[in-house]
């Protein structure tokens, strides 16, 4: 566990760098988290994916399945890895402030 400071706003993270309190998320936090996942800058496509994940989570309380995510955003899995090199779960979900994926990962 660690608490980091993002422009005067303190954010609690777990060992894997996922947010502990999801309501601490804001766009500056997203930019900070993106850097920890090898994303130097969040482009329009990054935001499209991040916002989609946030909205989906808000509506359904879970992260979307990969096929659904690709269909809804029009992004191919390869393009998602181009945007987030550590993948949709570790990369994009973390930046979008979703809870850490669980199960037999």
């Amino acid at each position, binding site marked *: 566990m660690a608490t980091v400071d993002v422009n005067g706003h303190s954010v609690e993270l777990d*060992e*894997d760098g*996922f947010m502990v309190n999801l309501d601490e998320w804001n766009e500056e936090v997203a930019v900070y988290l993106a850097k920890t996942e*090898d994303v130097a800058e969040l482009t329009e496509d990054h935001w499209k994916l991040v916002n989609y994940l946030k909205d989906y989570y808000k509506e359904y309380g*879970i992260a979307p*399945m*990969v*096929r659904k995510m690709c269909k809804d955003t029009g992004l191919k*899995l*390869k393009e998602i*890895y181009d945007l987030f*090199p*550590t*993948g*949709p*779960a*570790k990369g994009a979900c*973390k930046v979008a402030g979703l809870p*850490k*994926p*669980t*199960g*037999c*990962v």
Partner: protein
Amino acid sequence: MALSNRPLLDNLKEGRYPSFVKEMEKGGAKTEQLLNLLERSYEEKKVHWKHGGIVGVRGYGGGVIGRYCDLPEEYPDVAEFHTIRVNQPSGWFYNSKSLRTLCDIWEKHGSGLTNMHGATGDAILLGTTTEHLQPIFNDLSEAGFDLGGSGSNLRTPSCCNGEARCEYSCFDAMHLCHDLTNEYQDELHRPMWPYKSKIKISGCPNDCTSSIARSDIAIIGTWRDAIQVNQAEVANYADAGMDVKREVVYKCPTKCMSYDADKKELNIDNDNCTRCMHCINTMTKALHVGKDRGASLLIGGKATIVQSAFLGWVVKPFIKLNKEDDYAELKELLEKMWDWWDENAKVRERIGELIYRKGMTDFLKAIDIEAVPQMVKHPRENPYFFWTEEEVVAEIASRKNAEVSK
């Protein structure tokens, strides 16, 4: 004598079987805290690892299983203790050079502990820190190793040693395993599915990889012509004292064999043989698998969660496996199965459970396979059968026609 600080684990250094405690102690300072933590778990009868963990390397969505100790202050050396899955060579054939390379890399980056091998097949490197993950991945890649699978993806395929060392093998199991692993690298490294999917390959129905129980897709070698019989060798067995009737003929599950004790001749009614392997296993020199070889494809094998444990069941009684066309027919089928599953499954629903929920009829339609009797052990015992509207319309029309023509 000084009192040991790990009395419970010390018990496990006794006895005849190789002791994992002794092996771990060879790690010296590197494994000291892990052993102490394990001793504590033995005392308290509970695990000291936190729930979950998401770590990995660039470009991949799986391959590393993150773990954190729940007592990091007391056991700082194992505060981060991630596991790396390294894709094993087909059939687990190594030369000492590749094992030394693997050991050197692991010595540099990790705890020095391994699991040779994980149940799915991977070489398991047990215990390293997040900081080391990308560097060790780079070193492994440089040395020609790649990570195995983890997560909702194609897991590392594995196979029996096949034609390399076994005369029963009905196709080159190691080649197929290698070929499928390479063909589906994307599916393996980048989780894209509702849940995990495993492929296991056995050269014959002895199923030395337990594919039927431990893989969603089991590829099991078989043949469809006659068992090859060498009568002179049959006679040798009889002369050496084998009671051919008792040990072979009477044990055949379909009772399709007969033995002429005077002529010392064995006869097989191959149309009624189910290729169970018993006679071949018993008289290895006299009997041999047929010449027209291929595999049966079984679907759905999985462990208990959620719907109960399943053994795989037949989707294709016989499929030819051709190296020449890169296994085109098999691959087309695999892709259709995965596609239907990916489109229809709920989160964390294995393909076997999806078939259970939606029915074989839907599944077979999606993969363009006709239903055949070999797919079931017995027909359904209830009459709740669904007809499609078209089938009912067609049936009514054909009955009307029959009326008219009377």
